[in-house]
């Protein structure tokens, strides 16, 4: 039986060297591409936040073309068009990378669910493009459309982060399966926290796009702060010595502290700039930073959630049972996760 804190044995290894796929080289390539996708998605989130903060969402009235062209003329690349067109251009790059990643995963991966995840990512980026296009076509529903646009954006980012985690070297390294302590399982807690962070990011988008007031976002911030703090305390109490779980938890709490500061600063800057004739600094930068740190917090919590599901067995199940059941489940695909 595998118990947390005890030295690992052969039976306690969830992923052994023999479970590595034969085409491990291809997986390293997929991992790098997924990493690039993540970075580009962050860039896309920044571009999207700049569009919203600069009120540039309708500066290019047509879609999918921009002023009737795929590549706009340089004399059109001025003022707010720079933000909107850059957002569209980066979105195109992200879409292309996602397509390559989905194809590569489909033909290069042995894990069937990873193949499906690649297809889900591509479906997500296509859906996001369509929602973005609807935002341009139906400006009267901009607030209504902007909220699902933000939801799909952050969900896509979570999927991209998941692909990085699933293809990482650390995911494949031998790991000791631990039995989670009684009480609220960390697997459940991290899942709830990821969901709460995602909802909170959407509430933030709703506020920025004037679909909601600030109250839901403030209430969400309190709830998310409590959940992240609870998750981190749980990790520290139960798995302090396991860097595989403790590291993302520590990053998450650091990001939460930064995020709360940025949120307050961004709101105060927005209040102070209410009478300005146009969006100005520091409101723009603070809002963009707030969005990006929020996305990074989501990435940390997703990582922690996935790792928790990988190395923790429910308290009612012994670690050995968990290993056996997972090996049986993953047997047809040829790899054990």
């Amino acid at each position, binding site marked *: 039986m595998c118990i947390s804190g005890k030295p690992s044995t052969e039976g306690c290894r969830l992923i052994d060297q023999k479970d590595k796929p034969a085409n491990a080289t291809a997986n390293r390539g997929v991992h790098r591409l997924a990493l690039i996708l993540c970075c580009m998605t962050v860039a896309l989130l920044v571009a999207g936040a700049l569009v919203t903060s600069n009120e540039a969402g309708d500066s290019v009235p047509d879609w999918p073309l921009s002023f009737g062209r795929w590549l706009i003329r340089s004399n059109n690349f001025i003022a707010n068009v720079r933000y909107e067109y850059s957002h569209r251009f980066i979105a195109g790059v992200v879409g292309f990378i996602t397509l390559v990643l989905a194809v590569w995963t489909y033909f290069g991966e042995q894990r069937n669910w990873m193949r499906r995840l690649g297809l889900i990512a591509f479906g997500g980026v296509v859906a996001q493009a369509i929602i973005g296009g609807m935002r341009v076509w139906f*400006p009267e529903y901009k607030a209504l459309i902007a909220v699902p646009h933000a939801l799909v954006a952050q969900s896509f980012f979570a999927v991209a982060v998941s692909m990085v985690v699933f293809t990482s070297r650390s995911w494949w390294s031998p790991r000791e399966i631990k039995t989670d302590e009684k009480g609220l399982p960390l697997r459940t807690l991290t899942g709830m926290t990821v969901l709460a962070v995602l909802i909170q990011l959407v509430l933030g988008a709703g506020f920025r796009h*004037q679909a909601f007031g600030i109250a839901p976002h403030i209430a969400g911030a309190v709830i998310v702060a409590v959940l992240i703090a609870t998750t981190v305390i749980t990790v520290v109490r139960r798995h302090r010595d396991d860097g595989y779980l403790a590291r993302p938890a520590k990053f998450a709490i650091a990001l939460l502290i930064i995020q709360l500061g940025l949120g307050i600063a961004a709101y105060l800057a927005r209040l102070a700039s209410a009478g300005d004739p146009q969006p100005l600094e520091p409101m723009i930068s603070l809002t963009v930073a707030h969005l990006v740190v929020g996305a990074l917090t989501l990435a940390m919590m997703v990582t922690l959630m996935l790792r928790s599901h990988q190395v923790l067995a429910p308290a009612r199940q012994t670690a050995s049972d968990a290993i056996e059941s997972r090996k049986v489940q993953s047997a047809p695909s040829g790899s054990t996760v």
Partner: protein
Amino acid sequence: MLKKIGTICTMLMLVTILVAVGCKHSGGGGNSAKPDEGTKPAYASKSDEGTITGKISFDGAAPELKKIDMSQDAYCAGSSGDKTADDLLVADGKLANVFVYIKGGPVDKFSFPTPSDPVVLDQQGCRYHPRVFGIQVNQPFKVTNSDTTTHNIHPSPKTNPEWNKMQAQGAPAIEEKFHRPETLIPVKCNQHPWMKASIGVLAHPYFAVSAKDGTYTIKNVPPGTYTLVFWHETKGEQSQQITIAAKESKTQDVTYKAAATAGATSMQIAPTLLLP
């Protein structure tokens, strides 16, 4: 303990969403669609119309005009003309760009002929000229671009259809119409976010916009009792009852206090309906 905290947090999060969505749907906001004016009898003049005039004062220190940063577009930055915000223009204690109109009384019972002359909104020096103006329902609305840069014209009405059109330098005028009364429609250039205007669309011709000296005049008002409405972009709306006798000229002054605001904005704390 942890399980309880987790459950409570999840419940609170769901309640937060429900409150946000619920308030959004149950809140006020927006003008409801008004019936077309075509079914009303045409107004027949008895040559006994009166006039409403007045001055709009501003009680308080004139605000410092905020500078507009046009550096995003070299043409705009280099263009001649004022580069300060014009949403609150106060001169010698008088307030400009207040949209004044009447509602109720005889003007709601009759239809009025639609002028064929277009109302022109020009883009010059990366500013809208005029900033605030009125137009009748179905009256031609023409947008011209005197600048050598591209603009987009984007009115955001609540009861009329929304549109967003690009207008490059030298492009022909954009011609549109508003088919329903609506006060007031914000207009914006999304490429140059400081460019803003407001359009009051009415079913009758009895409206005016206060000049730089705060004066306004509404001519040829049919005798009757009305609500005289004063609307300012940042200082909000005021209204007064007014009765115009046959051939009467009446003066109706109004004062805006410096502390007044236009009311709901996206910054308010409570959840609100801001969706169409």
